[in-house]
């Protein structure tokens, strides 16, 4: 196999992309000026709804789109003006983009042939990589003769065989069924770790992003909402958008009563919660308190001091029960894991709701 590249860092500086589309009233700001740093050897996910600019950003890194402003620096070198074919980047397309007139072998060997490697070396490298992705024996098949999952593996093999500095994935699993998707994302993650190639992975599937990433970049309307580890993005969302897009969350509109250092006291319908946070809102301003459904607890027979909730709906899902409650005049979801016989509440029941303050986060209104 070809020699391994030193893992490269990617830096995007003040990068933006503006399209002109008369049908949509002129300028479309697909990506607004932003900075982003991607650490060497890591897998970073661009996560966001369709139209958020994540694919455009990825295609600018690949060199398929020219940025309107800004610089792209890969491994310390400015690549902004470098053509896509000189960037040493592997791009895995959503629709695989296999060459339909070439066999599996020829598809995988394509990049190596372009590099002018001797035939014996190509044969060896292709053999190795096909074994790595579990396609040994498929060399002579054409793309339309293999399954979707196998096509995905060929697309993967085709880029990793050249040992690029950077791997870019554009929603690579969206054409697979649910089971195959979970399996393939595990394989992609394992391969990426083994080869330790700096990777950017675009997806709109938050579960996939959580499962696969070292770092997640949540995007919305051409801007970055939050950058962080999966844990940070899930448990400490910086905005209402992030909280809602990554997983399910309960939103409690609150008013700030007091700010002491990093502790904010906020009131919801007469009840005050003290929350640790990095933001410092003004006293009297409106904020949102957020809590994940699995972070709250419920219990039977509410006492005087307890927060009371009314059960409106119950969904039994085997490993868990989801409750739709009304708490403090708000819709409120609680998830109870591993429900035992006889502990499931019926609709209409009054329950005690515990909202642990250390599990709350605060975002601006």
């Amino acid at each position: 196999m070809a020699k391994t590249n030193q893992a490269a860092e990617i830096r995007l500086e003040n990068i933006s992309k503006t399209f002109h589309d008369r049908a949509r009233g002129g300028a479309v700001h697909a990506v607004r000026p932003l900075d982003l740093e991607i650490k060497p050897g890591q897998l970073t996910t661009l996560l966001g709804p369709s139209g958020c600019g994540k694919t455009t950003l990825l295609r600018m890194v690949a060199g398929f789109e020219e940025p309107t402003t800004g610089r792209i620096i890969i491994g310390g070198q400015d690549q902004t003006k470098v053509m896509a074919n000189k960037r040493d980047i592997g791009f895995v397309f959503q629709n695989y983009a296999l060459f339909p007139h070439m066999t599996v072998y020829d598809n995988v060997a394509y990049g190596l042939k372009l590099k002018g490697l001797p035939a014996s070396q190509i044969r060896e490298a292709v053999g190795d990589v096909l074994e790595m992705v579990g396609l040994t024996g498929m060399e002579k098949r054409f793309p339309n003769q293999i399954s979707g999952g196998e096509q995905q593996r060929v697309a993967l093999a085709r880029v990793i065989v050249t040992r690029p500095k950077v791997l870019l994935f554009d929603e690579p699993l969206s054409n697979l069924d649910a089971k195959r998707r979970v399996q393939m994302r595990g394989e992609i993650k394992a391969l990426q770790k083994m080869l330790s190639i700096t990777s950017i992975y675009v997806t709109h599937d938050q579960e996939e992003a959580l499962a696969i990433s070292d770092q997640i970049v949540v995007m919305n309307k051409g801007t970055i909402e939050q950058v962080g580890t999966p844990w940070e993005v899930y448990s400490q969302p910086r905005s209402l958008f992030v909280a809602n897009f990554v997983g399910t969350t309960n939103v409690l509109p609150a008013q700030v009563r007091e700010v002491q250092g990093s502790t904010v006291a906020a009131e919801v319908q007469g009840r005050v919660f003290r929350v640790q946070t990095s933001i410092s809102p003004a006293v009297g301003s409106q904020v949102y308190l957020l809590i994940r459904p699995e972070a709250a607890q419920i219990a039977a027979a509410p006492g005087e001091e307890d927060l009371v909730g009314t059960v409106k709906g119950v969904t039994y899902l085997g490993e868990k029960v989801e409750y739709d409650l009304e708490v403090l005049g708000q819709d409120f979801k609680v998830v109870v894991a591993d429900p035992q016989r006889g502990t499931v509440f019926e609709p209409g029941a009054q329950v005690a709701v515990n909202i642990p303050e250390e599990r709350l986060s605060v975002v601006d209104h």
Partner: protein
Amino acid sequence: MAARRNTPKQAGLLGGLGRYSPTALVLGGLLWIFLAIFILYPLYKLLYMTFVQNGTFTFASLTRILSRRGNRVALVNSLKLGVIVGILSTVVGFLFAFARSRANLAKGWRRFIDAIIVLPMISPPFTLALSMLFAFGPRGLLTYRLLGMTGSSIYGMWSTVWAQVLTYFPLAYLTLRGVLENINPSLEENAFSLGGSRLRVFGTVTLPLATPGLANSFLLVFSASLADFAIPLVLAGHTFPVLSTQAYLQITGLYDLRGGAALSFILLVPSLLIFFLQRYWVSRKYYVTVTGKAASGTNAPLVSRGAKYGLLAFCLVVSAFILLLYGMILFGSLVKAWGANHEFTLANYRYLFTHGLKSIKDTLYIAFWAMPLGGLFGILVGYLVTRKLVPAGRLMESVSMINYALPGMVVGIAYLLAFNDPPLVLTGTATILIAAYVFRYSPTGVRATIATLQQIDRSIEEASTSLGADLVTTLRTITVPLVLPSLFAGLEVTFTRAMTAISATIFLVSVNWTLITVRILESATELELGNAAAFSVFVIVVVYVVTLGLRGILRLLGLATVQEKTAVY
């Protein structure tokens, strides 16, 4: 991402052109020059001749032409013929297509049907008219020899109708087969399982879903019939004049160019109308109604055993009749005098390779020039338009279709008017014949290229780029091989038509350059049927061999599978 497909910024003309590559712009400019010279200019000359007299706009030519009773009758006859042939061909084509896609026929039968259907498509348009003469003519095999009828008249409307139906129903068949194969059989199975009888399912599911296809097929055949002039010339006789033959006689008999132009304008209007109706209305309805994957062609529940064998019998009878007609051509080419002396002779072929040699050489020369040029032109226009490499691509595509949409007769007259006088005198050259074929038949290549390229996602080219290939390498290793099947489709059609077509070029042949088809027509109208038959056999054999050769090359290149996926005939 939604924002990926962007349209060019309209910051003034030059600013807008800035985003196109100079190479593409130069190439696009060249193509426009050719389109202007060989499509727009002749059309302009035709309209000018029809509507401008002594420098003023006038309807005089049209009213003069229409004031003659013969021409009014011809107009009515043409429309009547078109409607009857359109309906009958669609019915026959539908029965064939239905049998092929729904009756669960054995593979052998399906192959047989396809092989027969291709015959009328690769032979000169009036071959069947010729064999109708053999079968039903004054000395016809069926009428005279078998039935002992004398003086039976074949000439007239109905023999024209049947010759045209047999010639044009393959067009209907191909259209409808595509439509029926795209109707998911599970829809019919579903209706059947809901308790509908076979007839009811057919009437309430299959037929309504196929309706846009039926309309499309009718329009295609209607305009083919309207444009056809060879069959009426051989079979219609003086009792049944049609527009196309009138226009022909106006020019060759009366040397009345202005009258011919006016007549062909009358022919042009319904043809263009139908073309745009078919292209922008009917074809759009397809995509709304027909969804789902291509069916495998097995749909057991819909067709009962009786219906299956009924359909098969119908197809076989029609096929046998077509085979019989072609057999008679072959037979007729090998006997001394059809209907009188059936002694075996090679005299007709000797004539072919002596007196006919010039027309053979000329035709092959022209066909072998038109083939690559037509194929190349088609692929270039298709590529530039689909990949949005030039401004106003849609307009370029539409203009490139004009000569294809017009009746050949109209194109021929327009060329005659355009290239007879300076600035561009091409009359009497091979160039004018080659140009006529290239610009009339390259649209097949354009359509094939567009269809293929639309299936090739841009990401395939991007994949090649990001693996390290430059633009030229990507074109050479990815784009060209993938588009090659469309090029071959274009080559095949241009060659076949250059060998078989007559309506556009009959006015363009000269002492210097003549065509086999013209010789066949001359022989047929002068009732030298043996010679005509030998010429026809020769054309069919050559077209068949070249077609097979092209497909063989494609298979050798390992691209046949790609073609099967993207085939459009």
